[in-house]
């Protein structure tokens, strides 16, 4: 047999990392970003919450009560005491409406006598999970049916803001995903066309992208959304808004896909695959796409926040999703003027949900990008 590699170039004994696939290495690098892991956890929880919104929400989001208008938020107390002594159990202190004897204005005052006991997995408002399975279990709620609990307060019609935020997550978060899926599709189609045909097609697609990027998005979105017929059903409107948002959002993804694709095409391992006799399909799917996926996942993650913010903005301005549909933007519309914010600042809480989601997604996306491309930018 031939010369074994000698001296300094000896094969070192196998180590665990030697047989670690690229995906595993990316995952290991990702794990080192503490903030990114935290982001992943938050995002996962939020999406779980959106999927099981009916169960996660303590009440029916449309359950209104004229006597509970602008009910203030209640804090959960973990320690409760009654005649039997002290207990470790979650409670809230109920409020009741009282009229000021002089001004006759109604205000909420705490009623410290009878604490409302809370319990996990309680029976409450009935619902159909995913409009299919009839159920009435809620993750958390007052132990006795009929009692109230407003962790995030109540809105103008006495509806539970927390439940509405949880239901709103469904529209807002899914619009983010759908919008990004649309954008990705458009991005891959146009970025792919651009990279595949090159020449004039590439030129045309590139100029189109430059053109779209140079336009201010919100006025265009407004114009497109305002052009939707007023009598559209909420579901159709939902899809239209998704399409409108992604019409503009695809450009960034197309740029990333094209740029990466072109860079990859000139990699010598791709040429080597061609010379090995791989078919065009195998080169793309076996050799190029795996190298692209981590970048695409990172870009997609970083694109979702923009989509969520866009939906929120449109709905907030009254041209996106409209009541009775519930989304974070539509909820924030309630807080559009100073008077209502001054009266019930908790109406801004859907905004906190938006900020938390966007923040978590940004952490996650940044971590993914760094993990996918440890040497790049």
């Amino acid at each position, binding site marked *: 047999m031939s010369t074994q590699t000698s001296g300094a170039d000896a094969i070192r004994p196998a180590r665990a990392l030697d047989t670690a696939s690229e995906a595993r290495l990316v995952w290991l690098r990702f794990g080192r970003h503490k903030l990114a892991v935290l982001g992943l956890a938050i995002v996962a929880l939020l999406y779980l919450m959106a999927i099981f919104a009916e169960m996660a929400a303590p009440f029916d989001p449309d359950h209104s009560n004229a006597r509970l208008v602008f009910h203030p938020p209640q804090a959960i107390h973990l320690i409760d005491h009654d005649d039997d002594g002290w207990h470790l159990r979650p409670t809230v202190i109920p409020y009741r409406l009282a009229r000021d004897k002089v001004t006759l204005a109604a205000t909420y005052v705490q009623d410290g006598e009878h604490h409302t006991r809370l319990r996990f997995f309680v029976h409450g408002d009935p619902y159909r999970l995913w409009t299919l399975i009839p159920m009435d279990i809620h993750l958390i709620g007052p132990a006795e049916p009929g009692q109230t609990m407003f962790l995030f307060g109540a809105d103008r019609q006495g509806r539970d803001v927390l439940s509405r935020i949880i239901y709103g997550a469904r529209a807002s978060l899914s619009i983010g995903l759908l919008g990004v899926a649309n954008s990705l599709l458009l991005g891959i189609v146009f970025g792919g066309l651009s990279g595949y045909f090159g020449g004039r097609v590439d030129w045309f697609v590139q100029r189109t992208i430059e053109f779209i990027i*140079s*336009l201010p*998005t919100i006025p265009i979105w407004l114009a497109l959304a305002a052009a939707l017929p007023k009598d559209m059903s909420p579901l159709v409107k939902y899809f239209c808004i998704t399409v409108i948002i992604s019409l503009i959002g695809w450009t960034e993804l197309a740029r990333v896909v094209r740029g990466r694709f072109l860079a990859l095409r000139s990699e010598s391992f791709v040429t080597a695959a061609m010379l090995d006799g791989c078919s065009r399909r195998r080169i793309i799917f076996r050799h190029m796409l795996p190298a692209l996926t981590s970048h695409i996942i990172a870009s997609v993650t970083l694109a979702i926040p923009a989509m969520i913010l866009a939906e929120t*903005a449109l709905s907030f*301005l009254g041209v996106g999703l409209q009541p009775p549909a519930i989304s974070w933007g539509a909820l*924030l519309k309630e807080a559009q003027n100073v008077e209502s914010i001054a009266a019930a600042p908790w109406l801004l809480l859907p905004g906190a949900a938006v900020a938390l989601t966007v*923040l978590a997604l940004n952490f996650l996306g940044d971590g993914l990008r760094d993990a996918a491309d440890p040497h790049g*930018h």
Partner: protein
Amino acid sequence: MGRFIARRLMGMVPFILLVSITVFLLIKLAPGDFASNYAASLAASGETVDDSMLADMRQRYGLDQPLIVQYWDWMRGVLQGDFGYSFQWQQPVVSLIGERIGLTLVLSVSTLLFTWAVALPIGVYSAVRRYSVGAYLVTLIGFVGLAIPGFLMALILMFVGVSVFHTDVGGLFSAPYANAPWSWARVVDLAQHMWVPMVILGTSGAASLIRIMRANLLDQLNQPYVDTARAKGLSEFTLLVRYPIRVALNPFVSTLGFILPQLVSGSVIISIVLNLPTAGPLLLQALLGQDQYLAGAFLLLLCSLTVLGTLISDILLALLDPRIRYQ
């Protein structure tokens, strides 16, 4: 350089043409037109609608013409400075948009300068002292700035203004100056009011610019030419300013191309929340009421503004970077 600018200006022409076509299609996209909208609102208030009157109306405003003719008429007017007639306000569009577009421009450009002024030093700082507490703090604030939508920040500021300071932070002028003619005092009044929308509008842009500046500079700091400069005996500060920061400035300047559209875009929504006398509130109304020429004028001017921003950023970049100039 002159040839470069001339070439870029030539390149702008099809872009602006494309902008005008896009805008025209946008305002024509909605089903129905102003006449049918008008009819609907009349019907809603219980009045009977006369078909022949609607036909008259369509004829008067040229709404019965083929699209291409309508576009041509509109463009011909625009080129002569006539943006058409607002149905809602029963006034020529020009008299409605003048000051609002001007104020939008002032707000956007001053926010842009504010953004740069903030982002440049902070970006440099967080790259040069990348492991300091300050840099981590900046990164964190940057993330939060990106995560909070502008209108939400406007709402929060309004809430704080009302509940803590008992003032209204909205608007661009105090009451006495709102409709006054331009004077020095009015400019001062404007400056006193403008910082609130400027900060709100600039935050997310500044956050992303800080990140861009930081990334660029980190790239440049490891370049061999920095070692060359150091080996020449330059002081750390001099070489930092003269080389890596100078080079990192190029991509920074080219962000103008997308920051300006973002700012114009953001100003629309913030001005609606804060009730500013800029393009935003009127544009929204016009769009909802299908006041097509008013909406069209706003859209056309805003889009042209940002396309122009791209042009300016290209020219600035060519001034800064000989490699582009010589291509």
